[in-house]
């Protein structure tokens, strides 16, 4: 009984790549709508009514992307109206809407992905791929706050010795450059010391351990199997041409048979999977609390 964000990072990553992969791979409008709606719903379930600015930004982006295609491209047979001697066609308009739904949907999914995949989980995944790279990444992450702390120290000591002034712009820039230069020298020397200390403590002798362990539990395996199966069904429907949709020159699409409908419903179930998990978890908590 864990929240979606607490499941094994590997399973969560596979899930995200399945969802966004299908969205970027196909151009079937129903799948695009499912991806967009699923992304928005999941983002709202996670964040509530906050992030209003993100929503406004995405809305503006959607409008711009949807308008860009009919204004740029004049393919298509159904002319809606003529603007500046250029025909604006129905096909190009629909194509723009479809692309915009795909792009904004994928952006929403990745926004949630960025929230869920903290740097710790990134290290877990890169650690599986390459322990060395993961070490470099984790050190770089640790250095960012360290450097800002150190640069404040340097700035204070420079101010104390009277070398830093910010009343005119040239002096200000020169002062900042001096601080930066001192910081670089310090950072490099400090890095060497760290490396020597690591070597002295036996880095590279055995396998690296992790601060936090992520186990593969039943829920993770279940998520992995379910998302791969649902993606598989949609992928089969896509590759057999059951869900093809051409915009140019005239809209032409395959009428969905059983397999096509299966593909659409599998993808819809896939995009709703995290929302289902979240709802189940919160319902369970509510039930348990009411029993106490």
């Amino acid at each position, binding site marked *: 009984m864990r929240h979606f964000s607490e499941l094994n990072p590997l399973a969560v990553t596979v899930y995200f790549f399945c969802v966004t992969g299908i969205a970027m791979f196909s151009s079937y409008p129903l799948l695009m709508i499912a991806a967009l709606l699923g992304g928005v719903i999941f983002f709202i379930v996670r964040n509530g009514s906050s992030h209003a600015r993100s929503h406004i930004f995405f809305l503006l982006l959607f409008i711009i992307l949807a308008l860009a295609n009919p204004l740029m491209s004049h393919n298509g047979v159904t002319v809606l109206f003529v603007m500046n001697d250029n025909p604006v066609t129905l096909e190009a308009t629909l194509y723009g809407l479809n692309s915009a739904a795909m792009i904004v949907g994928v952006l929403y999914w990745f926004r949630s992905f960025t929230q869920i995949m903290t740097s710790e989980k990134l290290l877990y995944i890169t650690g599986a791929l390459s322990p060395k790279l993961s070490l470099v990444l984790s050190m770089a992450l640790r*250095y960012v706050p360290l450097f800002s702390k150190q640069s404040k120290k340097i700035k204070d000591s420079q101010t104390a010795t009277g070398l830093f002034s910010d009343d005119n712009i040239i002096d200000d820039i020169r002062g900042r450059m001096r601080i930066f230069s001192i910081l670089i020298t310090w950072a490099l020397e400090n890095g060497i010391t760290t490396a020597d200390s690591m070597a002295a403590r036996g880095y590279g002798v055995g396998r690296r351990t992790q601060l936090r362990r992520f186990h593969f539990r039943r829920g993770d395996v279940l998520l992995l199997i379910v998302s791969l199966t649902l993606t598989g069904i949609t992928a089969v429907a896509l590759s057999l041409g059951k869900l093809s949709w051409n915009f140019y020159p005239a809209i032409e699409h395959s009428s969905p048979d059983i397999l096509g409908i299966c593909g659409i419903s599998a993808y819809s179930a896939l995009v709703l999977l995290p929302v289902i998990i979240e709802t189940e978890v919160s319902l369970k908590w509510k039930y348990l609390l009411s029993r106490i």
Partner: protein
Amino acid sequence: MLVIKNQRLRNTIRVAVPFLVIPAVTILGSIAFDRKKHIIISLAVAALSLLLFAAGFEKKSTGTRRMVIIAVMTALCFAGRFIPFLKPISALTIISGMYLGGEAGFLVGALSAILSNFYFGQGPWTAFQMLAWGLIGFFAGLFSEPLRKHRPLLILYGAAAGVAYSMIMDIWTVLWYAEGFRTDLYIAALGTALPYTASYVVSNVLFLSLLAGPFGEKLGRIKIKYGV
């Protein structure tokens, strides 16, 4: 952890990926989806080449000191992305490539892209950014001799890298938006990205001319003092 422990399997992957898998993906992809959804193929190729690089890095016995210096440079790039309007990330990547070698340049570029995107937002573009910045660093390492000796050449390389970065990222914008590559959209994308391209070029030139000298001195000093 899922580290591939079998030495033979690892070697097979290292040979198979560049010579079999990447060409196969490209050719099969373009046959199967003729002109449609090139984005998936290019994403797959970008991801595979990054994986290949990671595998190569894992195999080599890079010294701990070298790795720590790469981490330091990556952290500086990450911190530099917070400066408004100016982006020192390419300049720092070029400097790392120039003084620490092509591999270090690639790593600094690619890793700072993936790290800073945890703050600025991950997306399918992460792979392209990693590849673009990585290649900027890698080529700086490849031409390190002339770049170190001739300052105008370095400035020119910085400006060219800014333009190239913008052009690579716009290819990806077009591929994502339309099915297949379209020249009219590409030109439009380049036009709208013009302010960004200008900011990349200006910041590369500015930071390279400000930082290349002092950084070279410092890295050279570290090399002599500690024998990295």
